[in-house]
């Protein structure tokens, strides 16, 4: 994610400013060793405060938080997730001491009044388990650590948290997040594929291909399904606190889409060929008769004229993948 942000900085809606990175790589991740400060509680507090101060410098800033690692939930309320830092487990008498309350992170980034210059657009990606360990049921009350105080609501100042601050969880409550050894997390792969174009949509107003919050919410579940099939996993995704649409990045060109074409009824296939042309009538796919059980291809996202047995249809190739089912005459 850090590398992606730097490589695609020019496509972001606001220039890349502060980028705090903490890494605690395992022995299986030698390429990440020594790249950044370790993700300890102390370093996390310092980095988070630097990040928050930067976010608070202008209300038009965009703040992004991405956490990948272990996590758990300590009860079933929506935001009771605890993110586990490197030294988790070092204090047997306070087992969640190096776990950060995710709600504290999000709540501490709230705008407290109309005049608060806190960034009004914030994105939270939580790539961590949300399992509920049986161990916690042995305790009356468990709290993770907080990294900052939350100011009290001033009754004289109208309180309204008017941020656009979606939180995207990779796991549903009670479930785990999956990683692939030597590769990365399943969610991380799907997220980056979505940002690279899998969630691309054509914006008529700007006449550009873009990825927005709306397109991400609609495409990421589909992209995740593709990644799940690749690794035989069952990762889900949850979006919390979505609001109006917001631009996440622009794309240089239309993204590629995997299109699968099938022809029904089966008896028509021996006599059916299919041709696909773009809006300029340039042929992009030609499949002569007999049509196979399925034809798979990759074409640029957009709208196409699809002709089979002289019957024409206008169809859309929409990222990340689109099935086209063509119904033709049985007698060809």
């Amino acid at each position, binding site marked *: 994610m850090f590398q992606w942000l730097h490589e695609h900085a020019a496509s972001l809606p606001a220039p890349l400013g502060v980028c705090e990175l903490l890494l605690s790589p395992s022995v299986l991740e030698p390429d990440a060793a020594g790249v950044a400060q370790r993700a300890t509680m102390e370093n996390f507090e310092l980095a988070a405060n630097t990040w928050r101060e930067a976010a608070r410098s202008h209300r038009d800033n965009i703040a992004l938080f991405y956490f990948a690692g272990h996590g758990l939930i300590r009860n079933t309320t929506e935001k009771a997730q605890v993110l586990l830092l490197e030294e988790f487990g070092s204090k047997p008498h306070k087992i969640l001491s190096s776990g950060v309350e995710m709600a504290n992170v999000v*709540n501490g980034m709230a705008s407290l009044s109309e005049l608060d210059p806190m960034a009004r657009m914030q994105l939270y990606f939580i790539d961590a388990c949300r399992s509920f360990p049986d161990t916690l049921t042995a305790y009356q009350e468990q709290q993770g650590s907080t990294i900052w105080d939350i100011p009290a609501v001033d009754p004289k100042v109208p309180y309204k948290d008017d941020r656009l601050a979606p939180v995207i969880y990779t796991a549903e409550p009670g479930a785990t997040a999956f990683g692939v050894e030597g590769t990365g997390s399943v969610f991380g792969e799907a997220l980056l594929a979505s940002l690279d174009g899998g969630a691309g949509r054509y914006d008529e107003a700007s006449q550009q291909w873009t990825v927005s919050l*709306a397109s991400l919410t609609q495409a990421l579940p589909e992209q995740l399904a593709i990644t799940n099939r690749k690794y035989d996993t069952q990762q889900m995704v949850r979006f919390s606190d979505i*609001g109006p649409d917001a631009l996440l990045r622009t794309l240089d060109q239309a993204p590629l889409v995997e299109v699968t074409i099938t022809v029904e009824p089966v008896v028509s296939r021996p006599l059916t060929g299919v041709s696909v042309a773009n809006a300029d009538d340039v042929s992009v796919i030609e499949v002569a008769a007999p049509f196979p059980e399925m034809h798979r291809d990759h074409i640029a996202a957009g709208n196409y004229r699809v002709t089979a047995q002289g019957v024409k249809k206008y169809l859309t190739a929409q990222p990340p993948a689109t099935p086209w089912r063509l119904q033709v005459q049985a007698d060809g």
Partner: protein
Amino acid sequence: MLVFEADRSQPGTHALVIGVSRYPHLPGGDGAPATNHFGLTQLGSAARSAHHFAEWLIHEARLPVPLGSCRVMLAPSPEEAQAPEIQARSGGCSASDFLEEANDWIADASRSPEESTIFYFVGQKLHSPGSEDLLLFEDFGAPRGPVFKGGVSFMNIFQGMGSNASLSSQVQHFFIDGSRHSVDESMGGFLRGTTDVFDVRPSQVDRRAGGTFHAAVPGGQAYAHVDGVSLFLETLLKGLRGGAAVRPRDGRGWAVTAGSLATWLGSESRAESERFGVALQYELSIRGDATVCTLDKPPSVPVSITLEPPEAMMEAWLKVVSDDGTSVHAARFDGPSMDFDLPAGVYEFEIVPHWNWQRLRKLAVVSSPGLRQVFTVRAQEATP
């Protein structure tokens, strides 16, 4: 009150719809005044809004799992009660009444994993920054018992509706209408003494799909038309009736999904804020992209075509052809843009300009969600 019940031998969608306008213990009410009313008063449109939502469910909605049951709880204001159809469905709306209805609702929903649920609440709510939303029922503010006895935590409802094996893999949608008034810190971070309606099992893996749609952000205000329905409901129904429709991936028909509805509500909140001069912001969460309802025909979309530069418009014609070759629109430009309606779909737009300019062809998707779909086409001068 059970107002609709279908054949119970098939999986169904089970709806619980609540609208509380009347609060006897809040200012303006006819009961013993609350010792702390938190600045809350009577409402004028909650019961009417809930009634309209129930009517949409029963008479219009095409749900992926057909409507199996619909329970309605209405506590109308004196003005709302003048409508016979609302008065006929009014009844007790206390927290204990809700406990009874909710437990009948969860019993229906728990029959199988193939059941589905819809929850709609409109009424007064309190929100504590350290906790979550408290839905306030008719007996809120009653002088006996804890201050918040007449309130039910939405999180208790939400978590309870995922607390067994059948429920935890269903499609469930929650619509929470009304303002989210903040409670100051003197009451403590958590609102205690509330009424729980369900037991919650923390170790149940929650694989539910669906959406949770709030009409306001924490501390935010919701609005309603005088003698009408809430703005949130008005926008919600407009979206469910086609404004939020998208083409499913299999290309068959049109549907409103949790994701497309979230996008629609998010866009409309901005448009409505400008239209009415208020600050509207909805809070929307989705789990997967489950279908909320389907449409029996493509929704109608207002389209606007603008041709640039303006001089290219002179004597220019626009033709719009659907994919079966049918001409659906043909007209000459007589102004800076051309406005018309089209059923959602993919069309070929052909602009035949004056001979000074090149003929243009464009394939475009006309689709919801959104407002007027605007296309700007840039003409190029013809090469000599």
